[in-house]
């Protein structure tokens, strides 16, 4: 591919006679006329003069080469990779500030395949502006929770600070070790029509998006490998290395080898993926409130009945929710006493409690003066013009240019776009601002530049902005050499401003060619003494163990039900047109087994069995269905995302696609049903393969395996209980036995071992007692005992161990020939009693494990409210 030069060389047509993609894009919207005082937006690809900017030529050439169809493929592959990587985003209503509100369902992250290219020289200017802004914000934060000179000297109006809900008075007295109070900073920037960068606002509470930026990079570099190599954008990995070492450096003094954790509000939070990604890039555990506790004035992580000290917390829970004692009461997302520990300096929380105050858009108009006074410098990265209504002249300006403004509350809350309001509504807002002027700013409508993005019919122009990141390191700030690019929603009234519709990878072109420099602070081999590993149990909080246990259970439950449904479907189809056949009676037996084993409602009279099987796969509302098990599996997996291999998401993504395909084929005659079942089954096999081959054996793994073993044990006993405790005709029994063996993945073994002679006794032997059959109950019991023995706090006499031994000895006493015996009502009494007992015992073991390991603290309550009584 030859590198194309200026636009002129690109003009023309592709061989098919269609205009080249890029030319069609550049000719969009009534042609750009250079030189004319055109109010149109700055174009990232061509700047203001219409000619391709140098950094974009490779991309333009690549786009022209692949054409419209290639572009569509590209988008499809991006979607697929995002799904495989499990990159999700959970939309929350911006108005619902309550992070404890009902969870929404995660959606797939949306990413445009085309990167946003930033040239080296431009980037250097931007970077300098970012670093200065971080330095300034740090100085302001330090002062607001320190000397208060900024307010005293009139550099910042007191109302902006004192009325802000993220100005946390209990955070006074908390000091982060080292040179900075602001650890992690993000700035959203856009471009004016002239192409200069402007800040829309700052993110300082708990900036999100760095993990997404890395996920975006991984996907885009895979779908555009040639272009990626050719363009060689600066790598993002080093930024996370820097952050990791910066985190260690802010640990309290006494911490020798500091333990760092990422504190997440949970798998349902808006940016749960980003949090988990960050934890994994930093190589530190992702923890929730339930994993942590304050004792003796410092922070600990619960771990297999013990506690391990925590030195640094990367806080992704909003500060006001992070301690129900000294901050917002009744928060379930925080740790009681965390503020006290921070004040004593026994733990470092970043960003520090109270950092959210800097996000107030009310700060923006005061930054230039602050930069002059505090830093003695001119503000390099200016903000989009913003007017604080608390000053009369500014308010008048806002009211006079009402429709060109975005009204943003100085505290948190949703922005208002007067241009989109009716005349009456506008008056209401004018009155509101006049009544409480200090609570509002008017920000001029940001122009946003345009960049090409993939659309169904070629390239479209998206309005783009970038979120830049920096982290405090040593005496300064280190920026991420990249950003989270974002395409704004066309309609700002939907979801509010700044809501991401589509992300973009941002490629910073390096001007430097020296390969030594390209290492960019990357940490290669560690030259210190041999590093002691964290003990494997260090991330084994009760919550994690419980989620791992349920992960194992749901995976097994899904697999077992799928196998049973496959067998049932085969039998239904075998006898559909031969109801008079001697063996046809096995069909109702199997269908009722499906209901009994999954605890779903039985087949309704007159309902087509295949449509019932379809329901059992798809119905998310009925308890016990495959859809529910899969949902449980996904939910558990998300909660322990940092414990799992990344391939897990690829596998689950494939399963989801298969189920979706079935849902989209309502008139299916059974073909899609079969292929979906096959896909789900192979997905579950892949999950167990990942578990056995790709996961370290730590307590989490043992609990996952325990879950799987107990579930499989319960499934096999329930299946036998519902199919074999009554004797039917010989033909029916024989087919039932065959089906049960098939559903238990033991058919081949059975036929080989018993030379094809079907008997109840031998089948029970194989499925219950044979410790060499990985599908037998005896095997599950042996494995579960081994799992428990492998735990770091194992004692041979724990309650679950004892109960497993009891089951083991029951099994040893069994004589299969006795179990086969039927009484005069054709009932196998001994077998019934045995299976009921075993099922009950297995359930008891699961409960005993829960009681011993999944420790839940007693519910949290307020101490009791003191009301003051009469004094007269």
């Amino acid at each position, binding site marked *: 591919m030859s590198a194309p030069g200026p636009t002129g060389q690109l003009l023309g047509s592709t061989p098919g006679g269609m205009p080249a993609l890029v030319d069609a894009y550049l000719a969009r919207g009534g042609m750009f006329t250079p030189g004319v005082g055109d109010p149109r937006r700055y174009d990232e690809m061509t700047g203001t003069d219409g000619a391709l900017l140098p950094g974009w030529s490779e991309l333009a050439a690549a786009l022209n080469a692949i054409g419209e169809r290639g572009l569509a493929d590209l988008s499809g592959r991006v979607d697929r990779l995002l799904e495989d990587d499990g990159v999700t985003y959970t939309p929350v209503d911006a108005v619902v500030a309550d992070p404890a509100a009902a969870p929404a369902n995660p959606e797939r992250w949306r990413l445009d395949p085309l990167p946003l290219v930033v040239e080296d020289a431009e980037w250097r200017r931007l970077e300098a502006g970012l670093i200065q802004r971080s330095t300034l914000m740090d100085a302001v934060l330090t002062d607001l929770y320190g000397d208060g000179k900024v307010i005293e000297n009139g550099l910042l109006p007191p109302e902006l600070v004192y009325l802000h809900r993220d100005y946390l*008075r209990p955070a006074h007295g908390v000091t982060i070790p080292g040179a900075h109070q602001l650890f992690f900073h993000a700035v959203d920037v856009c471009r004016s029509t002239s192409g200069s960068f402007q800040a829309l606002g700052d993110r300082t509470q708990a900036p999100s998006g760095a993990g997404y930026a890395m996920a975006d990079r991984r996907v885009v570099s895979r779908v555009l490998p040639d272009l990626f190599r050719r363009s060689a954008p600066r790598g993002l990995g080093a930024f996370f290395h820097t952050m990791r070492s910066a985190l260690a450096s802010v640990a309290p003094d006494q911490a020798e080898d500091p333990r760092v954790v990422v504190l997440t509000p949970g798998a349902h939070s808006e940016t749960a993926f980003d949090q988990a990604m960050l934890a994994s890039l930093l190589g530190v555990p992702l923890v929730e409130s339930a994993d942590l506790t304050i004792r*003796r004035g410092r922070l600990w992580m619960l771990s297999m009945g013990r506690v391990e000290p925590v030195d640094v917390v990367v806080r992704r829970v909003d500060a006001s929710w992070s301690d129900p*004692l000294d901050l917002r009461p009744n928060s379930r997302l925080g740790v*009681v006493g965390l503020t006290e520990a921070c004040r004593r300096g026994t733990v470092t929380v970043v960003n520090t409690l109270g950092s959210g105050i800097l996000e107030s858009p009310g700060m923006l108009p005061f930054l230039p003066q602050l930069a002059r006074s505090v830093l003695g410098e001119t503000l390099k990265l200016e903000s989009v013009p913003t007017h604080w209504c608390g000053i009369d002249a500014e308010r008048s300006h806002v009211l006079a240019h009402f429709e060109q403004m975005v009204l943003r509350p100085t505290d948190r809350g949703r922005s208002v776009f007067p241009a989109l309001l009716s005349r009456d509504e506008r008056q209401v807002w004018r009155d509101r601002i006049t009544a409480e002027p200090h609570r509002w700013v008017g920000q001029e409508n940001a122009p946003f530049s345009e960049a090409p993005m993939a659309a169904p019919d070629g390239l479209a122009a998206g309005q783009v902005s970038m979120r830049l990141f920096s982290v405090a390191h040593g005496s300064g700030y280190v920026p991420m050499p990249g950003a989270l690019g974002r395409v704004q929603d066309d309609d700002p009234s939907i979801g509010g401003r700044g809501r991401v519709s589509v992300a973009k990878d941002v490629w910073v072109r390096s001007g430097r060619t020296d390969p030594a420099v390209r290492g960019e602070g990357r940490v290669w081999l560690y030259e210190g003494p041999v590093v002691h590993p964290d003990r494997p149990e260090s991330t084994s909080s009760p919550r994690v163990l419980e989620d791992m246990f349920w992960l194992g259970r749901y995976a097994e439950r899904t697999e077992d039900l799928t196998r049973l449904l496959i067998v049932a479907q085969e039998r239904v189809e075998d006898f559909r047109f031969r109801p008079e056949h001697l063996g046809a009676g096995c069909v109702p037996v199997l269908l009722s087994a499906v209901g009994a084993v999954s605890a779903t409602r039985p087949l309704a009279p007159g309902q087509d069995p295949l449509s019932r099987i379809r329901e059992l796969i798809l119905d998310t509302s009925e308890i016990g269905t495959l859809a529910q098990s899969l949902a449980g599996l996904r939910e558990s997996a998300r909660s322990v995302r940092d414990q799992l291999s990344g391939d897990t998401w690829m596998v689950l993504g494939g399963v989801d696609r298969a189920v979706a395909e079935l849902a989209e084929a309502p008139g299916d005659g059974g073909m899609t049903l079969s292929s979906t079942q096959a896909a789900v089954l192979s997905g579950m096999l892949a999950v167990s393969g990942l578990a056995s081959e790709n996961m370290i054996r730590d307590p989490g793994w043992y609990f996952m395996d325990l879950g799987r073993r107990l579930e499989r044990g319960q499934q096999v006993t329930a299946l036998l209980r519902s199919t074999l405790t009554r004797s039917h005709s010989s033909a029916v029994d024989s087919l039932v036995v065959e089906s049960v063996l098939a559903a238990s993945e033991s058919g081949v073994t059975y036929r080989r071992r018993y030379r094809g002679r079907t008997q109840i006794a031998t089948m029970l032997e194989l499925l219950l007692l044979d410790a060499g059959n990985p599908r037998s109950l005896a095997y599950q019991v042996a494995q579960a005992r081994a799992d428990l023995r492998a735990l770091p706090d194992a004692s041979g006499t724990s309650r679950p161990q004892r109960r497993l031994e009891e089951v083991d000895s029951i099994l040893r006493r069994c004589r299969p020939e006795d179990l086969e015996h039927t009484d005069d009502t054709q009932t196998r009494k001994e077998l019934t009693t045995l299976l009921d007992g075993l099922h009950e015992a297995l359930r008891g073991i699961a409960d005993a494990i829960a009681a011993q390991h999944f420790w839940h603290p007693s519910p*949290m309550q307020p*101490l009791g409210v003191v009301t*003051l009584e009469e004094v007269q």
Partner: protein
Amino acid sequence: MTSEGETSERTPTTDMVTTSRRYRIEHRTIYRYSDDVSASYGRGYLHPRDTPDQRCLDHRLIVEPEPSDAADGLDVYGNTSAYFHVTRPHTELCVVGLSEVEVSVPGWDRTSASLPWELALPTRATDPRAIEFTLPSLLVQLPSAVREYAAISFIPRRPMIDALTDLNHRIRTQFKYESGATSVSSTVLDVLEARAGVCQDFAHLAVACLRSLGLACRYVSGYLATYPPPGEERMIGVDASHAWAAVRLADGSWVGFDPTNDTLADERYTTIAWGRDYDDVPPLRGVIFTDAENHEMDVAVDVAPM
């Protein structure tokens, strides 16, 4: 030596004695739970602070069961609070604050107090920090009804002390003291409408009135020494913790006033802590871990003159 009764009336030297008083204060709070509490985390504002008119001579906090961790800390307003963490399972938690304080007659500036109240309005330019106490807070919202109520006393150019005394008197006479008339979630507006409440409600209302005019006003938590009718013995433990308000004068000094009792705060008033409202300085708050469904609470405060 002459008898006390005589000297206090006559000689200026003994005036010095009577203008300062000493108290020994015991503030005991007991929680009883219907079931075991596995852990209690608490924060108490029970340590009387030092002020221009008050010295805390001694303070001890006793928590039972004994906490495994406890520490004192200074908050943003200079109040001392105590943190404690009880890890021994318990069905009863007892928190006792023992203090000795010396309180003198308040030394706020009489001249400033006689100036028109408008002169006490802080501005961004001159008193940026005092602005904090002119703004609404969670428990002190500033609806227009509050400003209208306040404006009746705060007529233009009226001397601050007169307006304040008038407002104090109106709250005392127009509102009924009634425990149970309000709850913790009651707003200032609720109190204004119900025309009833307890001392913290009246303190909040007074604070809201002054802030609605743009004046800087604090919520004050503390104790009031009470005296038995002549001839009767002082009953121990009948007292409770108390709350009132303080407004900032033009010279930057603060005048305490008690709308519950229609009086200015004097040497009978021991200040524990101040803040924007009750939530900044509750005598005790905490988080407990328990399955208990019920709890009872007993509070007893004894302010004994020494």
